[in-house]
């Protein structure tokens, strides 16, 4: 039995900030101090606060070390592990005992993410030790398929991928659909910019997804399942492969699971960089080895899906909820959340917010709690201006609506959507025209081109937005944007086009003044749109270091080294911002408003 247990976050985010090097340094230090037998290292999935990575959680104390670098490890080993004195400067809270009330954690309710960051995702025994596959056993031994569907229906679980369709109902449709064989698909083509909960679940607790799929397969009468993962997630693919082969070895996938006559097996399919494949009919086409283009519905996949057979498609987080409902009951699940949105939801906080990362909260929590209490507000004392919620299908909600509860209905009503749960926090330095343009650029680029409203409509809307951001827009353009937006929404073939205008329409709804500033005053109030700002040298700050002159491509930045201040000749300036980026003293200021030529 080891004296100390070190949980080292090995999610992609922590690996990308150096967790692997930290582990190597740790192993080395432990070997040198002859502590190898006394300290157990567990590589876990995502712990949540990605921006503080690499993160290390040390038991028995249960304290977090954050932003650990390989050079810090020796001190942790000699001071903490040998002498019992935790290294204060690396602690999250900076003091001991570590506050149980780290708001980032204390406001969360972890159901789906319970095992993430707590168990080794590559070891099925750790999953089983914390109750894994118990729900599958209960389902197969104690419940009929109809019982399972009834339980899921009663729980009020709705799809976590975006649209929020009642999960139990979907299962019932597939169960009752005629045709065989039937298939179960897990949609792990998480593509919304800013959403990464599915990646974290797949990397941190892959068996929970497999277990949810197996229970679903039993309920709908399927024997074969697919997990469609995007190719941008190689670590998730690798951990799933490990999990599947372990589950097969333990008889939890394959023929005659748990000695019953139920058989079910899962295969992984890897995407190849097409956002639209997250749409269910496009995803099915992609699994079939075709272009990932959507097709009109009906027929819905529940009637005619993969290979024309009845198919159940649910999202990763939806499947990960299933085992908890089976074990703890529909009543428990439906006691969490709001009247129509039950359970918890995982959100990915990103953008201009202090605590970025993954958080799981009860449905119905307000945006304010999410952004301020958990997220800590904007960094550097700036003011939060809006949140972009729901990715390219969602919308921008202003700070004045932060009292809204986060549930499917309230968000939709106000022009955003729950979507997959990505929340990008925008502070006062963000330009809403630019944000709207950015999301539309994304959808225009990712439009598969099959239907005209989406393919052409998004392009025209983008053209208008580009004009506005250059200061060439007119007020009629705003009406045209709205008209086109509604047209694209109404007439597009699939979810991509039907929601693509949302970021633009919601920005117009809540930030019209900002659009008008671009149009009437030829000014970008946030100082973002390059054609609607100008650069000046602040004489008091200039040290005449000559950096601006060196990087300036047009000779607009002028001056003599050692002889401040420098100046920018606006008639030659092309607003590239190179001097602004290069100045080591912050002496170049970007000001709203077009330069006077």
């Amino acid at each position: 039995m080891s004296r100390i247990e070190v949980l080292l976050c090995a999610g992609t985010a922590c690996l990308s900030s150096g967790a692997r090097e930290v582990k190597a340094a740790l192993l080395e230090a432990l070997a040198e101090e002859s502590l190898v037998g006394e300290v157990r290292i567990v590589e876990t999935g995502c712990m949540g606060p990605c921006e503080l990575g690499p993160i290390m959680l040390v038991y028995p104390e249960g304290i977090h070390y954050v932003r650990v670098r390989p050079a810090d490890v020796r001190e942790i080993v000699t001071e903490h592990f040998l002498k019992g004195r935790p290294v204060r400067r690396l602690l999250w809270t900076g003091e001991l005992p570590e506050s149980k009330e780290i708001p980032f954690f204390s406001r969360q309710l972890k159901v789906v993410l319970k095992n993430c960051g707590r168990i080794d995702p590559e070891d099925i025994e750790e999953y089983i030790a914390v109750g894994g596959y118990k729900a599958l056993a209960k389902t197969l031994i104690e419940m009929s398929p109809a019982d399972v569907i009834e339980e899921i229906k009663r729980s009020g679980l709705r799809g976590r991928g975006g649209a929020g369709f009642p999960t139990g109902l979907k299962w019932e449709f597939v169960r009752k659909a005629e045709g065989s064989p039937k298939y179960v698909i897990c949609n792990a083509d998480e593509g919304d910019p800013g959403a990464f909960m599915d990646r974290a679940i797949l990397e941190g607790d892959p068996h929970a997804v497999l277990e949810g799929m197996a229970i679903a397969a039993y309920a709908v009468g399927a024997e074969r399942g697919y997990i469609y993962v995007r190719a941008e997630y190689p670590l998730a693919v690798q951990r799933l492969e490990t999990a599947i082969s372990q589950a097969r070895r333990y008889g939890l996938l394959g023929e005659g699971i748990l000695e019953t006559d139920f058989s079910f097996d899962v295969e992984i399919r890897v995407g190849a960089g097409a956002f639209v494949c997250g749409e269910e009919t496009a995803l099915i086409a992609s699994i079939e080895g075709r272009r990932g283009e959507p097709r009109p519905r009906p027929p819905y996949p529940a009637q005619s899906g993969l290979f024309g057979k009845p198919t159940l498609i649910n999202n990763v987080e939806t499947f990960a909820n299933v085992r908890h409902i089976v074990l703890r009951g529909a009543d428990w699940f439906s006691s969490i959340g709001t009247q129509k949105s039950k359970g918890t939801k995982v959100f990915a906080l990103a953008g201009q917010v202090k605590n970025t990362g993954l958080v799981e909260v009860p449905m119905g929590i307000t945006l304010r709690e999410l952004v301020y209490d958990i997220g800590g507000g904007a960094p550097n004392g700036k003011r939060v201006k809006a949140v972009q919620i729901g990715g390219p299908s969602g919308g921008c909600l202003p700070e004045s609506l932060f009292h809204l509860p986060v549930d499917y209905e309230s968000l939709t009503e106000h022009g955003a959507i729950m979507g997959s749960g990505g929340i990008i926090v925008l502070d006062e330095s963000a330009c809403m025209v630019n944000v709207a343009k950015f999301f539309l650029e994304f959808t225009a680029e990712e439009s598969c081109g099959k239907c005209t409203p989406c393919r052409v409509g998004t392009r025209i809307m983008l053209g208008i937005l580009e004009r506005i951001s250059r200061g060439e827009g007119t007020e009629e353009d705003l009406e045209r944007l709205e008209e086109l937006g509604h047209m694209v929404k109404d007439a597009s073939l699939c979810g991509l086009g039907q929601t693509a205008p949302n970021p633009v329409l919601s920005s117009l709804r809540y930030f019209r003044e900002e659009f008008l500033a671009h149009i009437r005053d030829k000014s970008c109030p946030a100082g973002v749109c390059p054609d609607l700002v100008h650069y000046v040298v602040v004489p008091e700050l200039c040290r005449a270091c000559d950096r601006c002159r060196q990087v300036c491509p047009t000779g607009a930045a002028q001056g003599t080294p050692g002889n401040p201040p420098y100046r920018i000749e606006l008639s030659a300036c092309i607003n590239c911002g190179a001097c602004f980026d290069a100045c080591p003293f912050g002496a170049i200021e970007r000001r709203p408003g077009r330069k006077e030529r």
Partner: protein
Amino acid sequence: MMEKLELISKYPRSREYLLLILHELQRANPRNYLTPEDLRLAADYLNLPLSAVHDTVTFYTMFSLRPRGKHIIRLCDSPPCHLAGSWSLLSALKRELGIEVGETTPDGLFTLELTSCLGVCGVAPAMMVDDEVYGNLTEERLREILDSYREGR
């Protein structure tokens, strides 16, 4: 070609394995792309018309019909990374490599591409080199990373 056939022979001869086969063939090519022979092989193996394979290949951004570098750099261009300054990193990458997006360095070592969200927004800005993800990027870190690949050559 025999070696390549061996590589894909673990897959059943059914169209649903086309994407996996294409990934496999592309990975096996040191220049990270699919040759006309690769497409022919996949088509013959799955008993599909060549046009069907071509049709599928051209839909997905991760498949390339042109030679690329030994390492593919994919800079994340989604809003969280954008807000965190991926834009200036892109100029740094272009400067450092001397190429534009979609191009390959003359020594054949790197191809520069943009990607949609890598799902590591908590450590934005981020990029992927082959299968490895790098977060919290700065220009300095960028140079270190590129150097490590240059040395590993």
